[in-house]
């Protein structure tokens, strides 16, 4: 177990700035997800923590001890690679025991330790098999077991489930949470899949273009995104964005849609924020599909009238694509909701859950 501190960590590859001045405090025993699209610097950050890459500048501490100059194998870090990097010419037993073997661990102790890990991961019947002939799912487990055996204080997983089939992925998500609870190690999990990050992590680091955009609990990044990028990246389907401006009429403040002139009233608190700010009156209204409702008849609380555009029936729910005043929005409707393209629709917004972003900086106004 160990805490991790990144202090202005920076990595530059020739012309590309992969990671830009990253500061992060990860507490002991935390389950952290690095979330972001490919090329956002999450894997590079992970490699720097592991010691596979040297930071261009900045410092790295484990439990307050500076780690920059400690070689990769001596940091007490377990690493699971995206393609598992199984030693295909060895048996499962030799793979799992490799970390002990290179430390000169006696055979008897190695047998016992490998046995324990195999029990935990349900690998016992396969110990004598050639690791190169395993299924992808079992390779994943061997890769996990191999890095667990030396009992590292920190565990790094680089998109470990991206090659698995969907049902096994869901199963392994649960397994990994259970394992993390049992071994209580600090785990960092790199993923571009927000569902994985939301469902497993205690804390999420949302990264983009080498920068840390937001660091918070799953609840934070979902309900209180700091900017339009985080807001759009978290949640499925994506948050709807509508360009608008702040207007006041008859003492009532509201956001007016740029394209179609539709209006959304704003409460006193948001109004104060909007009136206090300077700069161009260029705003983005963000609202999640689950915070809207769609009707086929006029409803008293349905502010907007629009036209049905397309429908995605997903079984338990239906995504209704609707055109309102020239902007296209996605709304979550009940599983049985059906409509034809071109039909009139009425859309209600839960005003509690609207987000307002600055149109220039894309930062949230809160």
């Amino acid at each position, binding site marked *: 177990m160990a805490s991790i501190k990144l202090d202005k960590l920076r990595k530059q590859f020739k012309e590309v700035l992969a990671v830009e001045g990253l500061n992060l405090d990860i507490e002991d025993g935390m389950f952290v997800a690095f979330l972001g699209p490919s090329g956002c610097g999450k894997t590079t950050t992970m490699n720097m923590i592991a010691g596979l890459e040297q930071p261009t500048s900045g410092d790295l501490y484990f439990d307050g001890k500076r780690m920059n100059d400690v070689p990769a*194998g001596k940091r007490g870090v377990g*690493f699971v*690679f995206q393609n598992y*990097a199984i*030693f295909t010419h060895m048996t499962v037993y030799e793979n799992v025991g*490799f970390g002990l073997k290179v*430390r000169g661990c006696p055979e008897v102790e190695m047998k016992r330790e490998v046995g324990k890990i195999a029990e935990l991961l349900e690998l016992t019947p396969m110990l004598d098999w050639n690791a190169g002939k395993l299924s992808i799912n079992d390779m994943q487990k061997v890769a996990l077991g191999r*890095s667990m055996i*030396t009992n590292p204080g920190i565990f790094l997983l680089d998109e470990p489930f991206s090659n698995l089939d969907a049902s096994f992925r869901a199963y392994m998500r649960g397994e990994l949470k259970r394992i993390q609870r049992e071994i209580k190690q600090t785990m960092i999990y790199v993923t571009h899949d927000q569902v994985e990050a939301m469902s497993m992590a205690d804390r999420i680091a949302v990264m983009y273009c080498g920068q840390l955009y937001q660091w918070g609990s799953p609840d934070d990044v979902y309900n209180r995104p700091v900017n339009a990028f985080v807001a759009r990246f978290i949640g499925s389907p994506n948050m709807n964005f509508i360009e608008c401006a702040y207007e006041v009429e008859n003492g009532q403040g509201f956001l007016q849609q740029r394209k179609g002139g539709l209006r959304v009233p704003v409460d006193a608190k948001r109004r104060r924020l909007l009136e206090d700010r300077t700069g161009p009156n260029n705003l983005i209204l963000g609202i999640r599909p689950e915070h809207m409702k769609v009707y086929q008849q006029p409803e008293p609380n349905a502010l907007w009238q629009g036209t049905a555009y397309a429908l995605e029936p997903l079984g338990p729910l239906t995504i209704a694509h609707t055109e309102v005043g020239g902007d296209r929005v996605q709304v979550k409707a009940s599983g049985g909701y059906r409509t034809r393209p071109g039909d009139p629709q009425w859309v209600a917004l839960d005003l509690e859950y609207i987000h307002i972003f600055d149109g220039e900086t894309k930062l949230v106004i809160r």
Partner: protein
Amino acid sequence: MAASTPITTKATPGSANRRLRWIDMNNTRTFATTLTLPAQLVLLLIMIFPLLAVVYISMTSWSPTQGGDWTQAYKFWDWGRNYVEVFTDPFFWQALGRTFLIVGIAVPLEFLLGLGLAFLFLEDFRGKRIFYALMLIPMMIVPAVAGYMFWMMFQSNGPINAVISAIIGQPFTLAWLSSEAPATVAVIIAEVWQWTPLMFLIMASGLVGLPEDQMRAATMLGASGWQKFRYLMLPMLKPIIIIALVIRGMEAVKIFDSIFLMTAGGPARATESLSIYMYKVAFQQVRWSFAAAAAMTVLVIMTIIASYALRPLQAPQREAQAAMRQAAETGAAGSD
């Protein structure tokens, strides 16, 4: 070749069907045989025929000086007395032992040097590409020219003795090529110089092809450089290493050019390799049938050694073949 049944030819149009009736296109084995037939005939002519001719001559006491060409050799048929002579000729066995000594020292040296250099070339350094090209030059030099070069260098007043003299600070005038052990050393040095590049080339391509993530995984698990080499690289390179050693070993057994130019097998017989021995028997003593028997004996010995050396490679190969057969069968079944 089995004639096609109506069922197997249902896909081809009528006229073509009749013309190609004798080739069963749906039978993979027959189809493959048909396609490779010309190549097999050429192979038969250039490989099997000379081999059979050598076997034939080796069973006679024919020699071109006795009149009549080789087709008449059956007139001198003597039921393999040559083989008895080969087996009882001490010079043959000495040449064999000497050749194995040269190969046994030169080839492992070439391998170790080649592997070491390949490791150096894994790192990036200035002028790497130029050095890479320079490294390969010895291999591209005609062996006879290389032999001549080393003949000059190993003269008692040649550059090698000059360098040694400069290093030890007193005149060094060893007559390398006319002293027994030094002549063998000189031959081995020439061989190593010329063929280390081939080993380097093979090992460098093998190292580049190693899966990087497995190396990184081993690093993360705390393996040292040596442990990574011992437990990962070596086992993964094993097939390449075996093939490289076998190819080089078989080639080196034939060593001739450099020895012929440097020492012509001398002093006395000190560097007489199998090829030099056979050359002398055939072209100086004009004992063609005896030379043929010696050649056949060497061929049999080399075949036995090579098949043992390649044995570690055959298990995975058989597995791969079985897998391919299975895949072909399921594929054929799927398309029906």
